């Protein structure tokens, strides 16, 4: 049985922890709202970009060869996994579930004798997979805590493009946590290179019989646009991740606060009981002492 003083100390320390987790939950809730707004604001750009690329690649594929970034290098032997996670922990299983999705995929590919390299956006994913894949890690980027900027995404996608131009990989896949709701974040993977553009959802604009004028020509535009498309995808993933991370942290901290509350309750009960027991014991001692006289 711990002494009363020990119990008091424990209650105080759990209360302090609860204060911290509650504060973190509220901070995450505020940040989540901002992160969600940023996801919303980036959506028009991402959608327009995807539809333009889809249009262009549809009209391009009828023509010669095409760009390697769009159609691939003709091989799928070497893979690059771009794993976007958080920089900080205390967000439940957020980072580890993304890392696990990447690991599972990597194991399947490696069983087929393919080569996998890793590029981490966010330190946590690297922490999880360090033991298995440290030698295959190309670089680890930090994503910061103040929310991703487009400049960050440019830096990261420049690295990806550089690796691709140097012929370091054939296929690039992006892993991130898609924000579904505050309690659900979906580990998602997208193939970035070769650009897997769907046929624009079958929705084509009626141009009234006219065709697009291209300035300069289509292949020049695509050459300009594809690296930007990669940047846009990376940026989109970073934004989704930022929202998911805050959502996951909010849920995790809500649970932690509730657990701390339960612990305080049970500790307080034990404390009161042992205090009562001590009083009773002292009374018995006094009374039996008085009776003995």
């Amino acid at each position, binding site marked *: 049985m711990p002494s009363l003083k020990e119990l008091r100390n424990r209650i105080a320390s759990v209360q302090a922890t609860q204060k911290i987790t509650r504060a973190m939950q509220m901070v995450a809730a505020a940040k989540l709202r901002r992160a969600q707004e*940023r996801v919303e*604001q*980036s959506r*028009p*750009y*991402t959608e*327009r*970009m995807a539809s*333009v690329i889809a249009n*262009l690649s549809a009209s391009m594929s009828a023509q010669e060869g095409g760009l390697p970034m769009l159609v691939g290098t003709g091989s799928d032997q070497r893979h690059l996994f771009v794993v976007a996670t958080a920089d900080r922990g205390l967000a439940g299983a957020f980072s580890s579930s993304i890392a696990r999705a990447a690991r599972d995929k990597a194991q399947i590919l490696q069983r087929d004798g393919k080569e996998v390299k890793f590029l981490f956006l966010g330190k946590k994913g690297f922490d999880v997979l360090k033991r298995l894949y440290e030698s295959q890690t190309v670089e680890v980027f930090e994503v910061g805590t103040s929310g991703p*900027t*487009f*400049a960050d*995404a*440019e830096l990261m996608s420049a690295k990806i493009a550089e690796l691709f*131009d140097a012929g370091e990989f054939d296929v690039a896949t992006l892993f991130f946590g898609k924000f579904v709701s505050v309690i659900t974040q979906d580990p998602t993977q997208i193939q970035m290179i070769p650009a897997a553009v769907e046929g624009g959802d079958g929705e084509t*604009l*009626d*141009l*009234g019989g*006219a*065709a*697009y*004028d*291209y*300035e*300069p020509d289509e292949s*020049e*535009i695509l050459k*300009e*646009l594809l690296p*930007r498309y990669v*940047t*846009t995808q990376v*940026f989109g993933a970073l934004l989704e991740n930022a929202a998911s991370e805050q959502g996951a942290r909010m849920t995790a901290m809500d649970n932690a606060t509730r657990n701390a509350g339960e612990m305080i309750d049970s500790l307080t009960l034990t404390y009161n009981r042992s205090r009562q027991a001590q009083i009773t014991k002292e009374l018995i001692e006094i009374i039996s002492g008085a009776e003995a006289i």
Partner: protein
Amino acid sequence: MADKLKFNLVSPEQLLVSADVDMVTLPGSEGEMGVLANHAPLMSTLKSGFLSVSNDSAETKYYVLGGFAEVNPEGLTVLAEHAGEVDGAQRSDFDRHIKAAERKVETAPDDDSRQDAEQAQEHLNALVSELFGG
């Protein structure tokens, strides 16, 4: 009154403009161009430069750094990686882009891409010197 052109200026971080306007002048990579309502469908890349929007004899100027314009029967959409209103532009915001352009020139793997990078740098420098007078 002539028809109005539906104009969207979108950057990855936000939707800057979404309005019906009279005319937009774009810094196309093959030269400046003005777009009015009912323009023929067009896709063009943009160089770094100024984009001006005229509406009811009022004119608003924006700067764009690299981007892409699409005209279709629905209107004009400009996708710019970095864009903002000329009023309120901060010199310090551009330092990063100038550095990035320099790096691109230095690290260009072949002559072709170096030429492209140098040209992009030139456009950027012209834009900055016009904005801040040197």
